[in-house]
C-alpha cells in the first residue's frame, strides 16, 4: 500500500483503504483501529457482524505492520468476550489481603465507587499529593487521563512501566546517543545483525510485525547474517546463522571483547564520525574529567592539523586527535577515545571466553566480520542524498539491561555501534523518534559541553542520563534522588516500603494507589512478599480491570474498563526506522460497551470535578495535546472523550482532519524528509563515547551516601564501560547453585496478562516449552531429570514446582522460563496454576539492583532437583 504514495509530496496523504466500502454495510463492517494486545500498537481492521466482533486482520494501510498481525492480536477477540470480564464496580468486603485470600467482592453502584475515590483523593490533595501513587501500564488512554495528575495533582509517582527492567537502560541510551526513544534495525540495507539478549527481527520487540518480514527479506534476498547471543536458544536463535549461548550477566564482557578486537586488533572504527560527532577527542585529565578552557570552561581538544589545543566549538577545529597524550595546562591529558581503547584492551578474547563461555576464536571472528561488514568510509545515495553507509547493527535490549550492572552491559554493547558510526544511518542501528519535521517539528538539541542534551521526545519527559542530577537525600519512596542518572526508579518502591521509611528520611506514607491492568504483582517487581506488603500497607487501592488478575486481588475498589475494541485514542505521530513515510493511527470504539459500564474518561472527569481539579486538568490537556483556539478546552465546561480527540486532531492537522476523518480513514500518512529518516549526521550535537559527567555525579552521590551512612558500591559510575559480576554469576562459579534462572519472551504471549486468553492458553499448552522450564541436557543428566519430569526450583525467596523440558537449546548453566506464567488469580481460571511465575524467584535487595538504572537483576539463583514420589 505504501508504494502507492511514492512520488507524492503533498501533506497529508489519504491512504488507500482495501475494501473501501467497509463502512457502508450495516451487517458487515470492517473498522480500522489499533491493537492493544501488546505495546507495539499494530493497526488492524475489525470485522463486525450484527454488533459482534467476528474477525480481526492486520491493516495493510499501516506502515507499522503492513497488513500483518500476530497471534496475540488475533486473540484480542477472546479477551473482549471473556466470560470472566468485570463490567460493574466491585468493593472488597474482606479486609484481609494476601496471596490466595478471597477479597469477597461485592458489586456496588457507580456513585458509591466514585464517592469513595473522590473523597480519598480530595483528602490527599489537601494534605500531601505525594500520598497518591499511579501505575498505568497496559492502558494507553488511562496513561493520559491518570498521568495528567503529575502536573495537576502534584504526585511524583506515576509508574508507567510494568517490569523491573524495561526502559531502564534502553531509553536512556537512546536519549544519550541519538535523542530518540526506541530502537529498530534498518533492515532495508543492513547486512549483519547481532542480537544480544533480544529477538529483534524474529520475535517480539517494537515494530514486531513489520521487522519480522523485513528481517526475513534481508536474510533471504540479500543474505543478511544474523548472530544471536543469548543464554536461551529462543525463536531468534532458531532462525540465526549462529547462536552463541552466553553465560547470563556477562554481556558487558562480550561487548568489551568486541571493542577490543575492533579498536586494538583489527583497528576498524569510524574515525571521522568519532572526531566530529562524538566526544572521543575531548581531552581527559588524570582526575577522569575533561580538561577545560580556564575562561569559558569548555572542554578542550587537540587539533592535529595545526598542533593547537582548542575548545570543542572552535570554528578552526579541523582534525581532533583521538589518541596520544598531551600536556595541557600543566597536566597530562588523553583523548577520551584513547581511554576507551585502553579499557577495551583489558578484555582480550581469551579473558572474555572465561567470563562469557563464548569461545575466543568465535568472538574474534565475529568481531572482525562485523567490523568489515560496516564498510567504514562508504556512502550510499538514497533519493539523491548521499549518506554514510554502515550496514551493521548490534541490537540489545531486555536481556542485558535486566541485571545488576545492567547499564554497563548495555553501554558496552551500544558502543560497538557507536565506534562504527552505525547509528541512524542507512543499514545501521536505528533510534526511533529521533527527529521529526512534520507534523510536529522536533529535533534533539545540544546541551552542556556541546553534547546532546535535549531529546526530541516531547510532552512525556524521561529523566535523562545527561547531565543527570546532583544526588541528594531522598524525599520520595522511589529514592529518585539517590540515582542521579537513572531514567525512572519506581521499581524500588516496594523494597523501600518493606523497611523503615525513616531510615531513608521519607516523611509521607503512600495512602492510595490507582492502577491499570498491568499486573504489577505477578510481573512487575521481584520477591512477592515485599510487593504484597507494599499493597497491604496502602489505605485504598483502586484498580481498573478487564479481568481480575493477581494485582486486583489486592484492590479495595475495582472499576471496569473497556477492552481495546471499545477504546478511543489518537496515537502520537509515529514512524518506522528508515521508512520514507510517517503516520498517525487511531484507536476507536468498534463495538458498544456493556450497558452497565462507564467510560474511564467519564468516570475520571466526574472524580476530578469533585476533587476540584478539572479545570486544571483541561488546562494541562490544552498544553500537552497542543490544542489551539478555537479548539481549546474551556474552564467550567465538561467534554466527552470524542470531543477532546476531535479538538486534538484539528489543532494539529486542521479542521478538515478531525476525529471523524480519522475514524473513517484510520491512518494518516505523510512523506518524510531524508534527515528525518536517517538523522544520524544531521543532529547538531555530539554524542558520548565517554561518560565524563558520571565522575561528578559519583562524587556528589558518595557525599550523600556518607551522610546517610549507606555503604553502597558506586563503582558503576565509571565513565568507561566495565564488566562487573552479579551475585548469581559468583554463586554459580563457587558451585553454590545449580543454575541461573532466566526469563525469555515468546512471540505469542505478552506481559503478565496474556495467557488467560483461551487461544493463547491453547498455544502454550500445545508448545510445551511455554509452560515448562528449559533445562540443558547435561544439567538434566547430572540431576537425574528427564523431559516432562516435575522439578523443584528453589531460590533464596521462593520454591516453585515446574515441568522440565530437557533440551540443548539453553546454556548448560541456565534454566529458561518463558513468558509470565504461574498465575494464581481466581479471575484467570484458564492459566491458573500453569507454568512458573519467574519474578517470584528473584531476590529483591540493593545487591540485586543496578545502582545506576535501578533495573532488577533478572538472574534467579536456583537449586534444581527432581520432585520425588
Amino acid at each position, binding site marked *: 500500500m505504501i508504494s502507492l504514495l511514492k512520488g507524492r509530496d503533498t501533506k497529508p496523504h489519504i491512504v488507500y483503504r482495501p475494501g473501501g466500502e467497509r463502512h457502508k454495510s450495516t451487517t458487515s463492517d470492517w473498522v480500522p483501529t489499533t491493537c492493544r494486545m501488546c505495546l507495539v500498537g499494530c493497526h488492524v481492521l475489525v470485522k463486525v457482524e450484527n454488533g459482534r466482533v467476528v474477525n480481526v486482520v492486520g491493516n495493510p494501510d499501516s506502515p507499522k505492520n503492513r497488513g500483518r498481525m500476530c497471534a496475540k492480536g488475533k486473540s484480542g477477540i477472546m479477551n473482549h468476550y471473556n466470560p470472566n470480564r468485570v463490567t460493574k464496580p466491585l468493593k472488597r468486603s474482606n479486609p484481609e489481603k494476601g496471596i490466595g485470600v478471597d477479597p469477597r467482592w461485592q458489586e456496588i453502584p457507580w456513585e458509591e465507587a466514585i464517592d469513595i475515590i473522590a473523597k480519598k483523593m480530595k483528602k490527599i490533595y489537601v494534605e500531601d499529593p505525594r500520598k497518591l501513587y499511579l501505575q498505568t501500564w497496559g492502558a494507553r488512554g488511562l496513561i493520559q487521563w491518570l498521568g495528567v495528575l503529575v502536573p495537576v495533582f502534584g504526585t511524583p509517582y506515576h509508574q508507567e512501566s510494568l517490569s523491573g527492567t524495561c526502559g531502564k537502560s534502553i531509553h536512556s541510551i537512546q536519549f544519550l546517543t541519538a535523542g530518540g526513544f526506541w530502537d529498530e534495525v534498518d533492515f532495508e540495507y543492513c547486512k549483519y545483525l547481532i542480537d544480544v539478549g533480544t529477538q529483534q527481527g524474529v520475535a517480539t520487540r517494537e515494530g514486531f510485525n513489520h521487522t519480522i518480514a523485513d528481517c526475513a527479506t534481508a536474510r533471504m534476498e540479500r543474505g543478511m547474517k544474523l548472530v544471536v547471543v543469548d543464554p536461551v536458544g529462543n525463536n531468534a536463535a532458531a532462525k540465526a546463522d549462529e547462536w552463541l549461548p552466553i553465560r547470563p550477566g556477562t554481556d558487558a564482557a562480550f561487548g568489551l571483547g568486541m571493542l577490543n578486537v575492533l579498536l586494538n586488533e583489527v583497528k576498524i572504527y569510524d574515525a571521522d564520525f568519532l572526531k566530529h560527532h562524538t566526544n572521543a577527542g575531548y581531552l581527559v585529565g588524570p582526575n577522569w574529567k575533561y580538561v577545560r578552557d580556564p575562561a569559558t570552561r569548555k572542554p578542550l581538544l587537540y587539533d592535529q592539523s595545526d598542533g593547537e589545543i582548542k575548545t570543542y566549538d572552535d570554528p578552526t577545529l579541523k582534525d581532533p586527535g583521538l589518541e596520544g597524550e598531551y600536556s595541557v595546562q600543566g597536566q597530562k591529558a588523553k583523548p577520551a577515545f584513547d581511554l576507551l581503547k585502553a579499557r577495551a584492551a583489558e578484555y582480550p578474547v581469551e579473558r572474555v571466553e572465561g567470563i562469557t563461555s563464548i569461545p575466543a576464536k568465535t568472538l574474534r571472528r565475529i568481531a572482525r566480520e562485523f567490523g568489515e561488514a560496516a564498510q567504514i568510509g562508504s556512502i550510499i545515495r538514497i533519493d539523491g542524498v548521499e549518506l554514510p553507509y554502515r550496514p551493521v547493527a548490534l541490537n540489545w535490549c531486555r536481556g542485558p539491561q535486566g541485571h545488576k550492572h545492567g547499564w554497563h552491559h548495555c553501554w558496552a554493547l551500544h558502543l560497538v555501534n557507536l565506534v562504527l558510526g552505525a547509528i541512524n544511518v542507512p543499514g545501521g542501528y536505528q533510534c526511533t523518534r529521533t527527529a521529526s519535521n512534520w507534523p510536529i517539528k522536533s529535533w534533539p538539541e545540544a546541551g552542556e559541553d556541546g553534547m546532546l542534551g535535549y531529546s526530541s521526545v516531547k510532552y*512525556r519527559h524521561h529523566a535523562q542520563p545527561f547531565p543527570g542530577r546532583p544526588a541528594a537525600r531522598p524525599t520520595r519512596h522511589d529514592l529518585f534522588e539517590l540515582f542521579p542518572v537513572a531514567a*525512572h526508579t519506581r521499581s524500588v518502591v516496594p523494597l523501600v516500603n518493606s523497611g523503615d521509611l525513616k531510615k531513608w528520611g521519607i516523611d509521607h506514607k503512600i495512602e492510595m494507589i490507582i492502577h491499570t491492568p498491568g499486573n504489577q504483582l505477578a510481573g512487575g517487581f521481584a520477591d512477592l512478599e515485599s510487593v504484597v506488603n507494599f499493597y497491604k500497607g496502602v489505605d485504598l487501592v483502586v484498580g481498573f480491570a478487564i479481568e481480575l488478575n493477581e494485582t486486583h486481588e489486592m484492590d479495595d475498589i475495582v472499576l471496569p474498563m473497556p477492552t481495546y475494541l471499545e477504546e478511543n485514542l489518537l496515537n502520537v505521530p509515529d514512524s518506522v526506522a528508515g521508512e520514507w513515510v510517517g503516520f498517525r493511527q487511531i484507536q476507536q470504539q468498534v463495538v458498544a460497551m456493556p450497558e452497565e459500564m462507564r467510560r474511564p474518561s467519564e468516570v475520571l472527569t466526574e472524580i476530578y470535578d469533585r476533587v476540584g481539579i478539572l479545570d486544571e486538568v483541561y488546562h494541562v490537556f490544552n*498544553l500537552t495535546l497542543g490544542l489551539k483556539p478555537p479548539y481549546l478546552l474551556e474552564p467550567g465546561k465538561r467534554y466527552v472523550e470524542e470531543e477532546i480527540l476531535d479538538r486534538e486532531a484539528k489543532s494539529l492537522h486542521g479542521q478538515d482532519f478531525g476525529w471523524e476523518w480519522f475514524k473513517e480513514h484510520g491512518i494518516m500518512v505523510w512523506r518524510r524528509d531524508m534527515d528525518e529518516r536517517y538523522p544520524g549526521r544531521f543532529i547538531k550535537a555530539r554524542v558520548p563515547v565517554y561518560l565524563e559527567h558520571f565522575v561528578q555525579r559519583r562524587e556528589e552521590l558518595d557525599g550523600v551516601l556518607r551522610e546517610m551512612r549507606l555503604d553502597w558500591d558506586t563503582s558503576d559510575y565509571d565513565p568507561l564501560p566495565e564488566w562487573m559480576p552479579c551475585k548469581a554469576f559468583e554463586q554459580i562459579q563457587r558451585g553454590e547453585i545449580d543454575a541461573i534462572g532466566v526469563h525469555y519472551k515468546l512471540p505469542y504471549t505478552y506481559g503478565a496478562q496474556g495467557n488467560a486468553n483461551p487461544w493463547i492458553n491453547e498455544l502454550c499448552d500445545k508448545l510445551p516449552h511455554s509452560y515448562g522450564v528449559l533445562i540443558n541436557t547435561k544439567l538434566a543428566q547430572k540431576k537425574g531429570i528427564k523431559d516432562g519430569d516435575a522439578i523443584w526450583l528453589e531460590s533464596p525467596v521462593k520454591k516453585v514446582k515446574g515441568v522440565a523440558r530437557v533440551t540443548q537449546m539453553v546454556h548448560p548453566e541456565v534454566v529458561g522460563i518463558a513468558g509470565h506464567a504461574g498465575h494464581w488469580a481466581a479471575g484467570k481460571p484458564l492459566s491458573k496454576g500453569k507454568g512458573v511465575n519467574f519474578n517470584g524467584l528473584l531476590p529483591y535487595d540493593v545487591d540485586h539492583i543496578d545502582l545506576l538504572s535501578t533495573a532488577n537483576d533478572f538472574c534467579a539463583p536456583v537449586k534444581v532437583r527432581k520432585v520425588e514420589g
Partner: protein
Amino acid sequence: MANPSETGERDPRLDGSTRSQPVRVKVVLMGELKRWAGRQELTVELPGGSTVQTLAKKLSDLCGETFAQNALTKERSIQPHVAVFIDGVQMGRLAGTQTILTGGKVELMLLPMYEGG
C-alpha cells in the same frame, strides 16, 4: 492563538526582533516544581532578547536551592525532563532553550515519563 512557527508568520520568539526592550514574564510552576519552589507563580523581569536559558538562570536565583537542584542542571539550564510551555506552546516547537521570550506566560511542569514495558 496559532503558533506562528507553524503558520509561516514571522515569530519574534525566534528572530529576536524585540531584543531592545526589557520583558516581563509570568512564570507558573506546576506539580512538584511548585512544591520545590514553595510558590506557584512569580513575575520575572528580563533584559530584551532574553531566552529560556536566561530565564533558567534567573529562576535559579529566585526559586531556592531545592528547586535548582531538581529542576536545573549544575550549569543552571533547564533539566531535560522539565517541560516548558511558552504562551501555550511547547518550547521544543519553537527554538528550544534558545527561544527568545517576548513577555507573556511561561509554564514549567513535570510530565509523566515514558518508562517502557
